């Protein structure tokens, strides 16, 4: 419990407190908090997050059903591909998205919602899907023979049963949309502002630290209450549903299920596949027709980066490996503490970095660590540390339930046999959670690969990661730069898909996130 708490205190709480203290030197800025424009931003932030969440859940359910309960060719591939958008940096997808959406006055808002669904569908599909897959199919058989029509079964059996998973997934999606940054900035334009983009605008562009700190406090408070509420709901809903365990309940679709499957897969192909395909198309569309020119250019020196672009791929993989290690240690130890129900506050603390503005944290880093012995600014270690802050919540979310599911009797049996607590943990818990750790590792790796908001603040220019390199390419005019950005994005996509597929293989019937 001490190590993760110390890690978060040092690399999250301390820098954030430092920048907030700097901004709020003159006391709480009630004028900013109470102003009409702040209330307007808060309202829009909450409103768009709610609509995005509803749309994501609604569109994610059919796919969650298909993946959870049906056996079809390419099922594991679809499972993995669904996750790819989730870890792609927004800069990459925004361009592809703008190209695909029809013109219109409401383009900004439609684009925001569509992109939020695109990015977060994986959360619903994986969380709800894994839960759904472990429910006893006899429940639906019983309901049908009791006279419940398909619609009644959905309303009276499926949805109430899925409630805990829906709540968990909904909370996460809401959190991501509430703190959405790149999507709002790139697709919304100046007319749409969320707390996160306003914080960025105030801090990085208007240099109004006071307003930025005030808005950060507001956002932290909102996210904190959201997490508290979610924990409450989870406690009320959780535990009511006995799961079928590791039995695989999938079977071939039949009758109308085939239609449903076709619809779900078509929806996924259009909603997820099309933007990704547009990206691939872009990376191949050289000025001289389709070819691998942009990919070949990745091996050559460019004026845009200090190194040849392929270095960024190597850097990304190395950083992500280190970040995965850090996230596994921090998240794993935190999960152990949380699973023993001794540290609910730690649970919230681990999640909180997801709700903190990356720019404020970045600024916090540069003012908090500006004097020896803490002057670590410019150290390459900051990159995996920052990425681990983002990945650790996912590790906790995956490992803690696995630890909880370990039967207490196993501990007692082992204790009776004379094993020390440390030994119990090593010889009993570890093998049991190894599989969950495997899944978490894949996830943490993929998230670290795609992390942009925090990385860009701490990555050294001579050690860029792939998302940072993509961002730099997109910042330059010319077809070659846009094409190399797309090519790098495709490389990132493939790396991510591979990591997720590998994690899935470890967890074939595990049904974790």
């Amino acid at each position: 419990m001490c190590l993760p708490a110390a890690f978060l205190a040092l690399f999250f709480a301390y820098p954030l407190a430092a920048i907030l203290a700097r901004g709020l030197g003159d006391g709480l800025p009630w004028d900013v908090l109470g102003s009409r424009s702040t209330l307007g931003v808060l309202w829009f932030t909450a409103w768009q997050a709610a609509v995005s969440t509803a749309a994501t859940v609604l569109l994610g359910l059919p796919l969650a059903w298909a993946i959870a309960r049906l056996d079809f060719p390419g099922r594991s591939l679809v499972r993995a591909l669904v996750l790819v958008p989730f870890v792609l940096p927004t800069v990459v997808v925004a361009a592809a998205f703008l190209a695909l959406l029809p013109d219109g006055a409401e383009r900004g808002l439609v684009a925001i919602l569509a992109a939020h669904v695109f990015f977060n569908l994986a959360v619903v599909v994986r969380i709800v899907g894994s839960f759904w897959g472990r429910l006893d199919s006899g429940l639906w058989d019983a309901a049908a023979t009791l006279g419940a029509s398909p619609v009644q079964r959905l309303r009276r059996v499926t949805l109430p049963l899925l409630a805990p998973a829906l709540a968990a997934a909904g909370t996460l999606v809401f959190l991501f949309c509430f703190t959405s940054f790149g999507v709002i900035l790139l697709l919304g334009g100046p007319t749409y502002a969320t707390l996160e983009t306003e914080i960025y605008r105030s801090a990085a562009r208007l240099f109004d630290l006071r307003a930025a700190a005030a808005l950060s406090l507001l956002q932290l408070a909102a996210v904190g209450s959201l997490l508290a509420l979610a924990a409450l709901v989870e406690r009320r809903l959780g535990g009511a549903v006995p799961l079928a365990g590791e039995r695989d309940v999938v079977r071939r679709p039949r009758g109308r299920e085939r239609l449903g499957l076709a619809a779900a897969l078509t929806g996924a192909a259009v909603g997820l596949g099309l933007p990704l395909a547009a990206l691939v198309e872009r990376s191949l569309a050289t000025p001289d027709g389709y070819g691998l020119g942009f990919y070949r250019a990745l091996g050559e020196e460019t004026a845009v980066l200090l190194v040849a672009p392929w270095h960024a791929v190597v850097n990304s993989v190395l950083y992500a490996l280190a970040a995965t290690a850090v996230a596994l240690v921090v998240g794993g130890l935190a999960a152990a503490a949380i699973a023993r129900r001794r540290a609910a506050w730690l649970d919230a603390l681990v999640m909180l970095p997801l709700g903190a503005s990356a720019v404020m944290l970045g600024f916090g880093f540069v003012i908090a660590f500006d004097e020896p012995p803490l002057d670590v600014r410019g150290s390459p270690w900051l990159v995996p540390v920052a990425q681990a802050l983002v990945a650790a919540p996912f590790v906790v979310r995956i490992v803690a339930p696995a630890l909880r599911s370990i039967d207490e009797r196993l501990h007692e049996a082992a204790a009776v046999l004379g094993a020390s607590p440390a030994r119990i943990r090593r010889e009993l818990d570890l093998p049991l959670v190894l599989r969950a750790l495997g899944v978490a590792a894949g996830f943490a790796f993929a998230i670290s690969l795609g992390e942009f908001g925090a990385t860009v603040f701490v990555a050294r220019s001579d050690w860029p990661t792939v998302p940072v390199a993509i961002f730099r390419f997109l910042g330059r005019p010319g077809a070659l730069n846009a094409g190399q950005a797309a090519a790098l994005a495709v490389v990132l996509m493939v790396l991510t898909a591979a990591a997720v597929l590998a994690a899935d293989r470890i967890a074939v019937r595990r049904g974790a996130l």
Partner: protein
Amino acid sequence: MRAIVIGLLIAAVAGCGGEQAAPRQVVLVTHDSFAVSKPVLRAFERTSGFTLRILQTGDAGAALNRALLTAGTPEGDVFFGVDNNLLSRALGEDLFEPYESPALDRIDPQYVLDDEHRVTPVDHGEVCVNVDRAAFATEPAPTSFEQLALPRHRGRLVVENPATSTPGLAFLLATIAHFGEDGWQSYWRALRENDVLVVDGWEEAYTQRFSGAGGSNGDRPIVVSYASSPPAEVIFAGKALEEAPTAVIASTCFRQVELAGVLRGARNPEGARALLDFMLGERFQRDVPASMFVFPVREGTPLPPAFERFAVVPERPLELPPAEIGENRDRWIGEWTDVVLR
């Protein structure tokens, strides 16, 4: 796997070690658009004996703000990237130490903006309205501010928000310089009537909304960008082009001078001064156009062929005195926001 992790550890330790024993290292803090070709970078290291580390900390605005945040305990030795429009903010926060480089004698004096030499000019790049030539194949392209407000160009212009973007601010200042304190607001009202699109940053305006950018799917044929954007389109086209796909409206250009200075509290002020001297020297100045798509400030520096052929260097770009900008910038941005966005 294990080998990779160990390799990373060694690299990290080596990196940290270099940090502590670094009297011979100069750190350049700059924005994301900074670029330099490798041979030039090596040349500096060879001639000065310092190693150069480059720290890019966000777009021009963010990088400056981050530097201001750490004024006194800076992250590096030299800051490059403050422009004439934001200069007053940097000087007000006492970010720099004065240094008068001997190389200044070869610099065109019109770019030297601070008499105390707290900042030194490194390059200039004019912000101009760019047009997509393909979109104006069958009709004349606009040639002045006034024409942009004509009904036939309705829904064609995309500009950056001056509150959040340096070219956006430059374009606002250009309209103020052109129409005067009394006229610019009604001009912007007319642009708003004419469905001008405002986005937050240059990246979105140029690479996503502007139809003339290579690889873009944008649908707006007129954009606020730089005088050097047409040659950039040629150089990064990925194939040989006979002419640039975009053009500049020369009468709309506003001067932007980028400046550098020695950071107050720098660990290696000696190295910082050497780096400033080098940045004003011929080698670096020759590299500036092709790397950063701006123009050198050193007199007699030759331009690369693509710039000679495709770049427009406006004879008399629009200008406002830095002091006037410093005094009025925040008020103008506020008024602009009321006129255009509210």
